[in-house]
């Protein structure tokens, strides 16, 4: 009986299945089949034998090999350091910007500012890197010209290992803070204006209104964004770092993703590179899954 209704439903709903099919095929081919490819992480992989060829299974040897490399620990530290700083500033700066923007009364000025600060988000890191390499150059870069004019010594932001990580964090915040503030600005505009009026009648000044009305009004979205950003602890930003890194700053700037790229596609060490990639995916998966779980449990957040 049950089977019959399933069949009948299938027959009635087949156009819907048909619509899902093309997209489903694409993700099966380009997302699910590569997942089977992680078997390379457990093999002494020799590309000449081919993917389905008789590769030798070596268990966790690739992982042991990677862990024995002195660079691994450095890379892990760099990754977490850069990523964590980006997470913290990437939350604080957009919120602060949205709060200040919210105090502006001229709508036109507000819109003009928004138009300008959202824009860098839509430029690729290749373009950004081209611009930054010029701007930050110790010989002719605008930033160093300003430093020199103020009587300082030029700083080699992209070539000095002491400066490289903070340069990554600051330029990333600079590129993205505007766009990241959109969600907070949207949350603030949905706060009931009556609350501000009531607070004003009770004698609250601007600062107290911000503290007692605006901040509680966006509290949920702030907590939600914080929880969700935890999944990025191993994402130091491949696009940015790859385009700005150079061998001089590997000690403080090399991250997991650039290491995987160099190991795998430049040195053709497919096994160890896949092992590192798998490690990163698994850790990220656990972090994202648990933050989604928390977000769902506490804030009834669902992606679908």
């Amino acid at each position: 009986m049950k089977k019959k209704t399933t069949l009948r439903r299938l027959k009635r709903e087949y156009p819907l299945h048909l619509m899902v099919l093309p997209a489903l095929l694409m993700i099966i081919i380009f997302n699910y089949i590569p997942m089977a490819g992680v078997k390379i992480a457990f093999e002494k992989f020799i590309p000449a034998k081919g993917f389905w060829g008789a590769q030798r299974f070596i268990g966790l040897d690739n992982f042991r090999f990677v862990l024995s490399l002195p660079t691994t620990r450095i890379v892990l530290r760099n990754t977490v350091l850069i990523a964590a700083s980006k997470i913290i500033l990437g939350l604080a700066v957009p919120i602060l910007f949205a709060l200040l923007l919210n105090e502006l009364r001229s709508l036109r000025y507000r819109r003009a500012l928004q138009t300008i600060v959202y824009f860098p988000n839509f430029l690729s890191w290749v373009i950004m890197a081209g611009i930054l390499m010029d701007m930050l150059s110790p010989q002719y870069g605008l930033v160093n010209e300003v430093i020199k004019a103020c009587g300082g010594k030029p700083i080699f932001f992209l070539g000095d290992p002491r400066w490289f990580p903070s340069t990554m964090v600051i330029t990333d915040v600079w590129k993205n803070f505007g766009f990241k503030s959109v969600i907070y600005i949207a949350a603030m505009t949905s706060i009931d204006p009556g609350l501000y009026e009531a607070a004003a009648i009770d004698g609250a000044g601007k600062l107290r209104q911000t503290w007692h009305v605006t901040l509680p009004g966006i509290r949920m979205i702030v907590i939600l964004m914080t929880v969700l950003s935890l999944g990025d602890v191993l994402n130091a930003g491949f696009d940015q770092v790859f385009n700005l890194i150079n061998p001089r700053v590997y000690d403080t700037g090399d991250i997991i993703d650039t290491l995987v790229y160099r190991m795998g596609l430049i040195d053709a060490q497919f096994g160890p590179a896949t092992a590192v990639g798998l490690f990163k995916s698994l850790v990220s998966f656990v972090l994202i899954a648990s933050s989604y779980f928390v977000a769902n449990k506490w804030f009834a957040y669902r992606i679908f």
Partner: protein
Amino acid sequence: MRRTRAEKLFNVFNISFLGLTAFICLVPLLNTLAISLSDTLPVNRNQVTLWPVEINLKAYSFLLNNDRFWRAALVSIYRVLLGSLINMVLIVLCAYPLSKEPGKFQFRSLYSWLFVVTMLLNGGLIPTFMLVSGLGLLDTIWSLVLPGAVNVFNMVLMLNFFRGIPAELEEAATIDGAGHFRILWQIYIPCALPAIATVLLLSVVGHWNAWFDGIIYSNKLESYPLQSYLQTIIVGLQMMNNEMSVERYALFSQLNERSIRSAQIIIAMLPVAMVYPFLQRYFVTGIVVGSVKQ
């Protein structure tokens, strides 16, 4: 409303501080534009900051004659057109059934999970590269448009918008005998234009800006899209073939390398700047769900 002196002071501070912030966002772009338009000597003497000195279009006219640059730009344009078309068709088609309640579409949850999982897990760089290479897609346009054909994030955006469309419209159409394809085409798509515009613009900008796939999936310089091409000649560590550097040395005599680099950057961001006003108009309305009037 009366305002205290402290509030007025804060207001002045706030206006100038935010103005400065926006200015800092703008400076790098202005600087690049100014360098691209300035003459060799002022650039070498470091006299150019925000405004071009001895304006000329030499750098741009040099680029105009650079075949490699335009071939790469053509690959990019082709990729944007083909890639965005594929993205849109797949996303719109798939978002429609997934926006249905499970009661109206069996296995909806199963399908949804299959898509969501790809946001959380992936095979990683090496296996994906081997797949694309194994399918014989290297050095073809398909290696640039197929692997990312379904952007699940954009699909979720679309499907959430579809959910906001009143069910009465669909019921009425069903009673009139319309099938699902017809309902999608004649009701959902016209109602969801802001969402479609948003996703389309995101997809166009995404394809235009993508650079990494071009680098790993292309062996020949001719198949490089613009951003990958710029990556290798401007910021990349990999040395290009000698031909390129000979060409570069040839122009050192009359042209400034910085001006040419800046001109390339400006041209590469031009399409994004052109769609940006539309993008900005739509991304807020598009993302805000359920704005459809009854």
